């Protein structure tokens, strides 16, 4: 793969063949030219209607079709929507809650807290029944309303949770009728559950603040306890993506030569304005709403678990949602392109919206400082809270990285973990981890991931996001 240096933190894949735009990769140093993820950046540049660049964030790694860490904005009228550009776990995302608790006071009781969270929030393969199975009518309401449905049933940290979610915790274009019976069946008993793989719930300490003013605006004070929740739309979102890909993979050539030239079936796409494109968008937006409701229910369950384990009131806990961001989504957004306003469909696959100061789409409480950008790391090191910038609006359609990015395959990680107790190693470093399976801990150990500090460092050096605070885990539950 040919690469051209744009500046210290940005590399360009020149446009060639069927690419409609160049690729651009944020990285500290030249990316490995044989990295299969770079081929995927180049493949995404084939998408009809793609605008400016096929972008990759510094946590880029090999996905299917799209790389994980990829961003592609297409014209909202003439462009293509790609289910693979959103991914299977539609609106997989992360939220952070702040609390009044002091980390030093909680540390001796972290086992009780972590165990209570593990009891109350189902994790692991096919985890289910955190709350009673949804009826058909309830499912329709969840798919239409997103987090608002859960808040209405008392699952909340504070009174302003919805104001502190990207898009208010719900996408208005959702079409519950486009979500199949099969997708509904997969999701009906999974609301309020964490799932498996890299999903987690963490009790963190605010270990370091880099920008006091912004951290203060976000409610993140040094030495306090924060809670992080990383999960998505569970089986429902997977089924929506699966069915859309199965429909589009054999049929996309009928939309013309640009579609027939798409080099990977996992990049299957349809014109945004076509019946198939519109149906997918309606179903995808409904699945995104399911994911927001899922994280919102877990928020309520986590608040209750913390109060129960620590025998304190919700008032004493003082939990408040800092923000909730999507990692896997395609959204209609207005951006300036070469100085002109354009309506775009921005695919973020393993990337985070990172709108800068002054943007009216940023909640009023954060509008002066930019949107919180929540970047989980691995369970043994740290996570970061960043802020969006004006430069992100200019260069990346207001997007930033989404996490550490895997360094090793799961297979390699398990080989490295053989004969070790990852839970014991973490406990020795003061991190209590409870997981459904021992295998998960091996697959998800720190060494399997890039150092997220390097990833966010690239975004900060490139001016795409600024560092606000670092969170360090004290207690972790995983699937």
């Amino acid at each position, binding site marked *: 793969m040919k690469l051209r240096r744009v500046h210290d933190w940005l590399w360009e894949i020149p446009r060639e063949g069927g690419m409609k735009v160049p690729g651009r990769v944020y990285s500290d140093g030249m990316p490995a030219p044989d990295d299969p993820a770079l081929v995927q950046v180049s493949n995404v540049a084939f998408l009809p209607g793609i605008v400016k660049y096929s972008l990759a964030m510094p946590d880029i790694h090999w996905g299917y079709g799209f790389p994980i860490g990829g961003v592609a904005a297409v014209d909202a009228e003439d462009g293509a929507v790609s289910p693979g550009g959103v991914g299977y776990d539609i609106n997989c995302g992360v939220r952070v809650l702040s609390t009044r608790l002091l980390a030093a006071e909680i540390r001796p009781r972290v086992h009780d807290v972590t165990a209570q969270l593990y009891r109350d929030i189902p994790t692991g393969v096919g985890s289910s029944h955190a709350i009673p199975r949804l009826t058909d009518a309830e499912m329709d309401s969840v798919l239409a309303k997103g987090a608002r449905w859960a808040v209405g049933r008392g699952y909340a940290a504070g009174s302003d949770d919805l104001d502190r979610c990207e898009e208010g915790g719900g996408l208005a274009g959702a079409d519950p009728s486009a979500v199949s019976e099969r997708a509904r069946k*997969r999701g009906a008993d999974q609301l309020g559950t964490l799932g498996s793989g890299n999903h987690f719930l963490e009790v963190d300490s605010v270990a370091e603040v880099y920008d006091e003013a912004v951290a203060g605006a976000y409610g993140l004070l040094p030495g306090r306890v924060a809670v992080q929740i990383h999960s998505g739309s569970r089986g429902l979102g997977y089924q929506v993506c699966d069915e859309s890909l199965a429909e589009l993979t054999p049929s996309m050539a009928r939309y013309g030569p640009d579609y027939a030239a798409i080099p990977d079936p996992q990049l299957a796409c349809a014109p945004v304005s076509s019946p198939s494109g519109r149906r997918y968008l309606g179903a995808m937006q409904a699945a995104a709403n399911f994911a927001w409701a899922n994280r919102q229910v877990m928020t309520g369950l986590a608040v209750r678990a913390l109060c129960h384990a620590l025998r304190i009131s919700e008032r004493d806990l003082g939990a408040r949602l800092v923000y909730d961001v999507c990692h896997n989504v395609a959204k209609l957004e207005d951006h300036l392109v070469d100085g002109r306003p354009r309506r775009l469909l921005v695919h973020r696959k393993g990337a985070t919206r990172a709108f800068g100061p002054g943007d009216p789409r940023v909640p009023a409480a954060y509008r002066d400082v930019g949107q919180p950008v929540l970047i989980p790391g691995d369970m043994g090191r740290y996570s970061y809270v960043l802020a969006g910038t004006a430069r992100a609006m200019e260069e990346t359609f207001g997007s930033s990285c989404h996490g550490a990015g895997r360094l090793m395959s799961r297979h390699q990680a398990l080989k490295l973990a053989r004969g070790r107790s990852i839970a014991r190693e973490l406990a020795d470093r003061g991190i209590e981890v409870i997981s459904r399976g021992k295998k998960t801990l091996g697959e998800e150990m720190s060494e399997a991931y890039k150092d997220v500090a390097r990833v966010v460092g690239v975004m900060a050096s490139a001016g795409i996001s600024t560092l606000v605070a670092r969170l360090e885990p004290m207690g972790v539950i995983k699937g």
Partner: protein
Amino acid sequence: MPRGPDGDDEGVRYALPQPYREVPHTADVGVEVEGASPEEALARLVLAFAALLAGGGAVEVEREETVSVDADGDPARAAVTVLRELLFRFATERLIPGACEVRRLDGRGAELSVGFGRWDPVRHAEGTDVKAVTWHATRFERAGAGWRARVLLDI
């Protein structure tokens, strides 16, 4: 189609475990199998998928069911479509294939007889939570005198 021992039209029934290779992928997992015939390759692909779900634990077959898919003449599409169907059964009913016979694999799709067992949280604790069957880098092709099939699975 392989013939039964009496030379009739019955296929060959395969049971766990069957040989397969894991294909390296950074975030997820791929499986690759070989077979003397396309039917054997598909049966082994089904059981490689089952082996990942079961994590090496035994699967006691409780019931036999026919699984049919349509797939427009492309065996790779037929293979992905079969696995998508089996994944749906796992996700919603916790059923894992323990045995498989490919009765038909042709230009119209595939028909299999699948012996299902039930997922057990203890026996299959080391199993992989497969969440989707992808189309990326799927292969179903001749390899020497036999056939090779490969899929990447989202986990």
